[in-house]
Structure formats: structure tokens, C-alpha cells
């Protein structure tokens, strides 16, 4: 299990990374924490001709607050964000589910977003919170809403030559309440189903991961307690639950109904 040959560039600043990305086009890959890309390279599922290591770009290393949002640049590891659990209540709840201490120590927040695994926790949070992805290419910057960024299983709105510079997550407001839970086969595994909920006043927002190819979002302007079971059953049947090695479509729907209830109760109590 050894990777195919690739060239390697350690970028010291973002412009170097972007010009290399521009020049190499589709055959180049950004290497962040390597916690997903490494396995794909080793199994030769991915065979890029050039890896651009962005982890030495100092300017992308620190979390900051900007205009009521948390800005998390590309080199911030999941562990670094988890250590600042004061920053956002939902992230504090969801991040411990992302892999293990050992993978969070290197895996980045933006890498998880870029990787766009349908079961991953961070894309789910970003979608729930209405976050944005700041994208850069050699010549251009653009910002994409989370809901538009995820295009499919491991597919995003990123185009050749572009990388994620940072993700922006609106800071939690006082009247918002959050909950997160998931079920995987083992601790630290990708979720079979993950659900995150946010309540703000009467408005309830729910995102589901692990079922569709991208995080699924539902919002209810009001939802009476009595209507919750039906609402969750509707949701469960409306998504694209499928069978795989680890779970059945039926089980995924069961989890959407049951975990959905748990997180809704948590944000409503």
C-alpha cells in the first residue's frame, strides 16, 4: 500500500500555493492534515502529480473573530478548534465526534470541509450554522454559502486552481440553542447518521449527515411538540437512505426519527 509518485511543494505563503495550483491544474492536490488524503494516496485511489503542502503557511494558522463570525483559516487543526470550545457551543459538541485525538491533531477544519464526506461532522455544522467558505485562486477570491458549496459525495464547488482559504462561521447568538449527536459503528468512526439542531425563537433548523450525499437541511418556522414525530418521519422518508455494509436504509430512517427527536428535545428544553 504505497502511493504512486508525486512531486511535492511546501508552500511558504498562500500566493506560492495558488500559483502552483494554477500551473498544475487538475493534477495537483492541496495537502493539509493528510488524514483523508494520505489514505487515498497510499491506496492509490488518488494519484495526483503534485502535492502542495499548505501547512507551513503561517498566515493561515490562527483562528480569529471578524464581523460577528469566526474565521478559521486553512491550517487550523480540528484539535486547535476543539481546544477553543468557548468559541462556539455547537462546535464544542460536534468536534469530539470527529475521528480521534490523534487524527484531530493534524486534520484541519478546512480539509474536512474540502473533503466533503457526507458523514463528516464539520460540513454538517457549517451547513446548520449557515457558514461560508472563502475560496481563492491565483486571481480571484469568492465566497460560497455552505449550502451551495457541497455538491455531492466528496464533490464541492471548488474549481481547478482554487483552494479554501478559510471558513467563516457566524458566532452563536444568545437566543440560539444547539444540539448534536450521531451514531457510528465505533467511537471515532464516520457517522451512520449524524444530526445537528439549532433553535432560535420558534425557528428550528435541523441538518442530517450520513444519508444524502451532502448535508440535508430542514427548517421549521414553528414545530409543535405533537407534530415532531410526523415531521421527522417525513424527513426520514424524504432523504435518500440506502443500504451499505454498516447499516440498512431502514436503520438510517430509524436513526433520523430517533436521534432527530433527541436533538430537538435538547434544543427545546
Amino acid at each position: 500500500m504505497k502511493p504512486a509518485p508525486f512531486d511535492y511543494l511546501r508552500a511558504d505563503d498562500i500566493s506560492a500555493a495558488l500559483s502552483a495550483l494554477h500551473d498544475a491544474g487538475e493534477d495537483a492536490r492541496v495537502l493539509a492534515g493528510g488524514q483523508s488524503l494520505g489514505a487515498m494516496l497510499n491506496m492509490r485511489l488518488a494519484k495526483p502529480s503534485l502535492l502542495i503542502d499548505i501547512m507551513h503557511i503561517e498566515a493561515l494558522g490562527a483562528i480569529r473573530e471578524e464581523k460577528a463570525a469566526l474565521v478559521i483559516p486553512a491550517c487550523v487543526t480540528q484539535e486547535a478548534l476543539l481546544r477553543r470550545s468557548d468559541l462556539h457551543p455547537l462546535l464544542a459538541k460536534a468536534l469530539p465526534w470527529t475521528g480521534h485525538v490523534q487524527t484531530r491533531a493534524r486534520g484541519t477544519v478546512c480539509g474536512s470541509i474540502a473533503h466533503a464526506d457526507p458523514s463528516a461532522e464539520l460540513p454538517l455544522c457549517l451547513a446548520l450554522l449557515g457558514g461560508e467558505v472563502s475560496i481563492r485562486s491565483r486571481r480571484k477570491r469568492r465566497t460560497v454559502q455552505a449550502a451551495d458549496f457541497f455538491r455531492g459525495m466528496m464533490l464541492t464547488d471548488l474549481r481547478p486552481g482554487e483552494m479554501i482559504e478559510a471558513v467563516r462561521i457566524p458566532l452563536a447568538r444568545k437566543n440560539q440553542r444547539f444540539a448534536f449527536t450521531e451514531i457510528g459503528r465505533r467511537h471515532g468512526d464516520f457517522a451512520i447518521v449524524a444530526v445537528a439542531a439549532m433553535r432560535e425563537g420558534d425557528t428550528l433548523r435541523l441538518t442530517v449527515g450520513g444519508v444524502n450525499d451532502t448535508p440535508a437541511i430542514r427548517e421549521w418556522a414553528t414545530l409543535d411538540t405533537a407534530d415532531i414525530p410526523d415531521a421527522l418521519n417525513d424527513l426520514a422518508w424524504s432523504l435518500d437512505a440506502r443500504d451499505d455494509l454498516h447499516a440498512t436504509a431502514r436503520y438510517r430512517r430509524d436513526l433520523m426519527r430517533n436521534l432527530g427527536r433527541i436533538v430537538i428535545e435538547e434544543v427545546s428544553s
Partner: protein
Amino acid sequence: MLDACDHRSEDTLRVEDPPLLTGAGAFIDDLGTPPGTLHAAILRAPHAHALIEGIDVGEALTLPGVSAVLTGDDVRRLSRPLMVGVKAPIEAWPLAVGKVRYAGEPVAVVVAESRYVAEDALDLIHVSYRRLPPVMDPERALADDAPALHERLDSNLASERHFRYGDPEAAFARAAHEVAITVRYPRNAVTPIETYGVVAQYDPHEDAYDVLANFQGPFSIHAVLSRALDVPGNRLRLRTPPDSGGSFGIKQGVFPYIVLMALAARVAGAPVKWIEDRLEHLTASVSATNRVATLRAAVEADGRVTALDLDQIEDVGACLRAPEPATLYRMHGNYTGAYAIPNLAIRNRLVMTNKTPTGLNRGFGGPQMYFALERLMRRIALELGLDPLDVIRRNLIPADAFPYTTASGAQYDSGDYQTAVATALEDGGYAALLERREAARAEGRLYGIGLAAVVEPSVSNMGYLSTALTPEERAKAGPKNGAQAAATIDLDPTGAVSVQLDSVPQGQGHRTVAARLVADILGIDPNTVRVIAEFDTAKDAWSIAAGNYSSRFAAASVGAVKIAAERLRDRLARIAATQLNAPAEAVVFEDGRIFAEGNPDNAVPFARVASASHWAPGTLPDGMAEAIRETAFWTPPELAAPTPEDGINSSLCHAFIFDFCGIEIDRTTGQVHVDRYVTMHDCGRVLHAGMVEGQIRGAYANAIGATFYEEYAYGDDGAFLAGTFADYPVPTAMEVSDPLILHIETPSPVTPTGAKGVGEGNCMSTPVCLANGVADALGSEADLVLPLSPARLMPLIGGEEPQPPAGAAPRPEPASGGRTLTGSGSAQVAASPQDVWEMLLDPQTLKSIIPGCHAVEEVAPHIFRADVTLGVGPVKGRYIARVALRDLDPPNSVLLEGEVNGALGTGGGTGHVTLTPAEGGTTLAYRYEAEVGGKVASVGGRLLDGAAKIVIGQFFEALGRQAGGAKPGLLARLFGGRS
């Protein structure tokens, strides 16, 4: 043979530990290799069943750094097939010859300057396969119309035997009740964390092979190896490294690779090293057999079982590979378990399917057997309205019946099952557990109690395998029996003591136990004794039973050590006696000194006496052999060959285990929480408390994996689905609970130390104990199939699923198992059906609309060959696709049949396309079904669905665009060679 000397060493620290803790272990991949060593990588079959029509290695050979490529032709030319354990025309080779019979079967070996380059070359080997329908299910494999795996055998039945002990028919005729159960036991394996490794050399001058491998025995396999390599045994030197990263039976399965790498070294003219990777290991090393067993019991009104009838279908995979059918016959003497059941009928069928050949796996045969038997005991209780505990107790072999001979011939050496059960219930808090269940149930929780009683055999009789042959075949082949254990002790010229073991330890602390024992016998400090555990068939004393399996160490290997040490001590006593002027019988060995009983002040140092045979042989008492090296062989006389009536004492000692558990199932998630687990062991004399506990805990954790998580899963198309540790979920510290371990001791009268094996029992008892607990919690006797994943349990808890909301479009339920990728869609195209039709038949148009297409040619009318790059996100590969258009109904509908092949795997499928005129053009509708195999199916299961959907969607989107219709594909630019 039990003596007063107590060899227990409760708190001994292991001598093995300091190097392992500091990174100084010596595992196979840590050792230096001979100069000029090359590295091997293996090309493996993407199909479960296919003819190899050609292998083109030309391009691979031209890659700089590549020395040789080995294919089936070389293997056939240079070696002979691996011996098969039954009389059937089955050819087993270490590498596919002409045909592949399981996904992951080796097809070619590349030898190159590094593993990296060797893997590069794998991508350059082109194999053309003709696919054959695979047979995956063992029952289906027996059907008349099932495709046969082996040409010279017209069915997939490798062997069938019927056995009858006592008078089962009469017992069934008389019985008040008959209770039956059918159990399907899946494939799993206690995958060690270290994978296989081999370093092989060939000496053309002596036509001799020298191989280092982390093989674990049994060394009966050495005979299989030398025969396959076509050399006498003395021309195959097989060595093992000092440390091995766990085996659990699995490392026995490295042996075909020993042949393969030995041949590779011969062809390459250089030493060759191969370290298996995890994907290879999960896909193609050995696993437990999967088994379909139907058990029927003749039962009296009080729950007493008078007869058992077993019908077992054992799936050994693609060929019967040595030492199989060990898994089926290892337990042959034990099929009545811990119970006094005098009548027994067995029908055993060995079946071949398109899966990886099976082999030893911790508990081998036991987990399969006890899962059926102990589920049956519970079912008996339920059907008769009895307490499951009473049914177990009523059937246990009485304490005064030992030594007890089972119906099928095992001699249970010792035991007191009643005391063991009573002590477990008392000390394990069974009464409190019953209350706990009541309380939980009163709150509406799903709480259950499970039980299991198990006899754990150890020290296999090398003759049990021949039970698979008929008495006539056995008579012709000559008797096979026994279990020779060997040990050698050396006294060097400084009087220091070394011990050589035949047990090939895999982390069980054999060196510590042996040092302790020898030190006790010779009255010296255990820290001064050195025990060498690496093994060398050219220099060590050994026999076919050598190795690390069937828990033979404590009972057999230690026995041989004890005998050798005692013989040396007796000789040293005679030497010392002359110096001490005392009779040899009165000589005492203590604290590194030797003295006459009652006169410790007049002592000679141990080292002086121990070195005397080197320095002053002339001073030895007359007629006495020197005391320099002592090799002891020990084989228990109890292990006789099968009788003409097929009775077999399949193992030497028989430990007893009684387990009970309290489990709770979470109604919202279907997850099982093990609330309490009590495991009572009677493994005879406990030689090292800490290590016995370690064995029990290890087996318990393995059993948690087998019960709830692990399965070597296959798709119906033969694709292997569990190629990573993400897909084969070995439990972590978060999933494994802490069992309460209890002991009683009834020492074995047949082993030199009174010890019995202990390492495998919980792999036999725990899965079924937990499954019984789950059944109790569910209040249902539904057939439970391992692993008991929440997805399997949830429907058993919740009953019917809530209906989809009224008015919702019915969703097509995907095929169960999730292997077949299906989808459908439609596109509006601004062109007439006729125009669209013509585009579909035109190679140039196809080239521009197939995602990632580099070239298309029409190789025959309506048959196209395309060179495409396909991928999702970062996962990308280049493939050759063949597409045939069938059932053409111009310009209305067509069926597309396609197949893609590439380094990442293969796929095949059909698509049905219909064109209907619509406003301003055509509605193009499609439906597809596809199956994917090879590497990408094993490691990227989750990816496939999305990939298929996207790629196919793109194709039709591009078709629409080409016809001047729909807006350009959003995703197309992320794909393939074109953007």
C-alpha cells in the same frame, strides 16, 4: 505426574516486555535483510470467478527497477500444488493458475528494488479475464446447477461424511420433544495488528530454500511446503523472527506466501522480501469458516437431551487449503459440548465457494459449534417452558463421571462443572442480576440475561484431521495421531542455562513461563535463564505439532520443558552427589547452590556442577551421559488415532467455561450495552495468573468484535467489501467492557503441569452468551445472525416501521446488501428522437459525451471500446470500458451493457434508455443497475454509489448538451481528463 513443586508465578514480570516497551522488539520487518534483497508486491484478482485468458507483463518488466514478474505459468513450472486434506481432485496453488476463484487471489508477483516500484509495476500488468458466475452462498453452492469451482470435480462438495454414535434414531423416536435450530455463522477473523511477512532465499547449488516468515505453525505445514517446492524437507529451512505481532491462528495462513516468495527468490535470483499490507490481509489472508448448521435435539420432558443430530455445511472458500478441514474436525470429539448426551449423529459437508480459503482462527471450530449448540439449549428451555439455567445444569456431565468419554470419542480429562457453575452464580452475583433485569424491565427497558457453557479443548491430536477420511481411506493412509512437543535445554561452559522452545510465541509470554519453570526445577534465579523463542527447522528439535495454536503451550510445550529440566537436574544431582558424598536422591537445588539435604552449609555452586561436563568430563560418574544438552520430546499417549468406529480423542485436555451476562439494548439506537459479563474458567492448574487473565481478556475482546462488529462481508457478485479497518471495525477501548473473571482449578491428570489451555475459550463462549442475552432482551427467538449490528437489531425491537407520509412518492427500496448500484433519471433534449438515436450510435459523439473519455472505437457493430478516466473528488482512475448496445428499437429504446476494468477495480452493469418525443424535443429516460468489484469495492464502498450516480448523470447530461439542450453540467468540469 503432578508433584509438590508449584510452578505458579503470580506476579512475575515478563522478560519479553522491556524490549517491546522501548521499541527494541525484533519483528520480521524490523530485521535487517541479506544484501541485495528485493521487494515483492502482489497483483490480485478483481473478480471472484474468472478464467485468465492472458497476462501481459511486458510493460511491467520494462519499468526501471523491476527484476522479475512471476505468474501462474512459473508457479506451475517450478512447484507442485499444495497438498489437500481430503481425497478430492482439487488443485490448490499459492497463485492463480489459469483461473481465479476469489476476489483478491494472487495473480502475479512483481519483484523490484523497492515495494514502491513493485506496486508501480502492478499497475502495468494487463490481465484479460473471462468472467464466470460466482457462487457465494454455501447452500447455493450445493445446488445441481451451481457453477463448479474446480474443473475436475463436478460439484462444489469437497467431502461429505456421516457419523453415528450410540443410537440416535432410537433416542429421537423415544423423545418427548424434538427441538431444532438452524444457525448461520459468518466469516470473521482475529486479524493480528502485524500482517504477514516473508523473506526468502534460494541457493541453486544445493537446490535449497531458506525462509524467514512470521509463521506460527503447525509445522506439519513444513511438509506441505517442501512438497510444494519439490525439495526434501532438509532443503527448506524455515525460521521465525524473535517477535511476532499476534497471530490468533491467522499467521498459519502465511504459508502459501512462503511458497510464492521462495519461488520469486528463485526466479529473481536474489533474496525477496514481502510484507503484506492491510488491504491484502483483510481481503486474502485466512478467516474462520462460515457455516450453516442445523441442530436437532431429542429432549425429555425435563429438558434432558438424549440425542443430537447435526447437519453442517462448512464453507472453506475457493479451495480446501491445509490445514483445513481442521476447523470442522478439530471439535469432532466435542460436539456434545459440556453435556452428557450419549447419542449423536453428524453429517458434515465441506463446500467450496468463491471466497478466500479459510484457516485457523482463535477458537477454530469452537465459535461455530457453540453458537449453534448454546442457542439450541436456550431454545429447548423456551419451547419447554423451562429456565435456561436449569436446562444447562440438568445436562452437564456429572462431576463423578470424569474421565468422561463423549459420544464421539473425546476423553474429558477432568472437571467439576457443577461446582464451577455454582461458584460462578454465587461469586458472579447471578441472583442480583435477575433482580436487575426485573427492575429494568419494569421500567420498560430491553434487558436480557444470556448463558453459555463450553468445553474448551486444547493440545490438538494431530490425528483428528484424518477423521475427515473414511475408515477405509485411513487404513490405507496409515494411522495419524499424537502431538509431539519438544524442548531443549543447554548448559554452557559457564554453567549458564538456555532453553529452546517449539511454541513460536506470539506475545503470550512463553519465555517468562519457561524460564520460571526451569529455574524452579534447577534452583536458580529465573533471571539467569535465557529462553530462545525464535525457531529454526534446521537446528531446533521439533516435530509436526510444533507451533502456537490450540493452546498447546501451557499443557504440551511446558510439559516438554519440564521433562528436559528434570532429566538434567537428575544428572546434575548424580554429579553433585559424588562431590557432596551424599546419595543423588538427597541432593537439593536451591538459590543457585547444590547441597545434600540437611547440610546447606556444605554446598557447591550450581554453575560449577552445570559446567562440569564441559571442563572435566572424566570426572563424571561411571556410565553417566554428559549433562550439556537435553532434548525432551513428549507426546501424550491419550492422543490415539481415530477408531474404526470414527471415535476420536481430538484434543488432550478439556477446560470448562461457564459465562453469563446482562445486556441492554437501547431502543432508540439498537445498540447493545454489555452491562455485566461473568466468565468462570476451570483451566486446570494456573501457571501464571496475569498471563491467564491476559488470554481471557484478549479472547473476550475478540469475541466482542465477532459478536457486534466484525464480518468479512462479500457482495452477491463476489466482491470483498471489508478491505479497511474502517470497514472491518475491530472494537476499540470504547467498545470493550470489563468482564469479571472467576476460576476454579481441577488440574489435568494428563499434562505434566496439570495446566490446560485457556486462550481460546471466550471466543467460543462469549458470542453465544451475548446472543442469548440479546434474544432474552428481545423476548424473541428470532434467528440471530452475527454480527449483531444495531441495523440488524432495530427491526426486531421496533416492529413495523412508520409508514411514509401519505402522498409521498414511493422510494425504490435498493437491493438488500447494498451491493447493486441502481438509479434512474431523465433529461429533456432539444432534438428529435432520431437525432438523439444517431448520436448514441456514433463513436465520435460518444467520445465527447462519456465523462473523462480519451478515445472510443467501435470494435464490432454496436460494440464500443473506450479509454476513460473516472473519478469522484480526489479518487480517480483510468479504465478501459466496453459497451455493447443491445435490443435496439430505433429510435425508441436501447439496452446498454457495459464493463469497465482498471487498476482500481472493475464494474459492470446495464442501462435501459428510452426516448420519447416531447415538447420541443425528446425526453430521454434511463434506468441502470451496476456492480463494482476489486479494490475500490473493498476500500471505498461508501464512494461507489455517489460515483455511479454522478458519472451516469454526467453522461446523459452531456448527451443532452451535445444535442443542443440542457445547460452545461455543473459537475462535469470536476471530472476526468476533460474539463
